[in-house]
């Protein structure tokens, strides 16, 4: 179970199918599939870069990587992951590493769930 706090809105809807429907409206199934593919390709690396930043004491790298992951996650509807990233980004920005490791662990766990959800979308089950 995640130790990170959840906001009321993300508690209700950790992933938002409306975001995927929106992308489909913006550019059809082609855009949706390309956005999902790019996310699945890039998100693990962004999280790894955030973890590497924490390990090396480069909190700016952690902040920047979490910022990128937050933006992409929110666009794809991974709202709980976006909230975790935002929380970590805020802490990293303040320059105090306390709590970031737990947030990154929770983010990695959540990313696994998001990947499964998006794989389902890619397989045509959503939206």
């Amino acid at each position, binding site marked *: 179970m995640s130790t990170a706090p959840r906001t009321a809105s993300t508690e209700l809807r950790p992933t938002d199918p409306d*975001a995927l429907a929106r992308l489909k409206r913006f550019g059809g199934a082609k855009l949706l599939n390309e956005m999902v593919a790019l996310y699945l390709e890039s998100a693990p690396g962004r999280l790894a870069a955030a973890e590497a930043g924490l390990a090396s004491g480069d909190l700016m790298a952690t902040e920047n990587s979490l*910022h990128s992951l937050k933006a992409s996650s929110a*666009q794809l509807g991974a709202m709980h992951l976006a909230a975790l990233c935002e929380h970590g980004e805020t802490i990293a920005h303040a320059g105090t590493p306390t709590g970031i490791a737990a947030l990154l662990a929770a983010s990695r766990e959540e990313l696994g769930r998001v990947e499964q959800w998006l794989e389902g979308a890619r397989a045509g089950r959503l939206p």
Partner: protein
Amino acid sequence: MTTLAVVEDNADNRLLLRALLGERYEIVEFDNGIDALAGLRGSHPDLVLLDISLPGMDGNEILRRIRADDALSSLPVIALTAHAMAGDRERYLRAGFNDYITKPIIDEAVLIEAIERWLGGL
């Protein structure tokens, strides 16, 4: 055709902007500030969409250099940012951005209206 420069390091965001804007405008893309500043002079865009959080040179510094360059200083520049804090809009406008759009992009009409406003179309 009206040309927009998109300065954004995330490939997914560039893809989204191409999908939303590519039929209306010519799009030139840059994924970092150094290339953008070099390329803006040659591509003669009518407007710049500029991400704030870029690795290396961030959007605020790119804007400062655009405004300090006689050939580019009058370009309309719209900030694109996933930082959505109270007071951000005023802060970016004070810094010299013409407008401010938050990510994620929920309503494409808001983006297009901002672009058209600064292109003089609205």
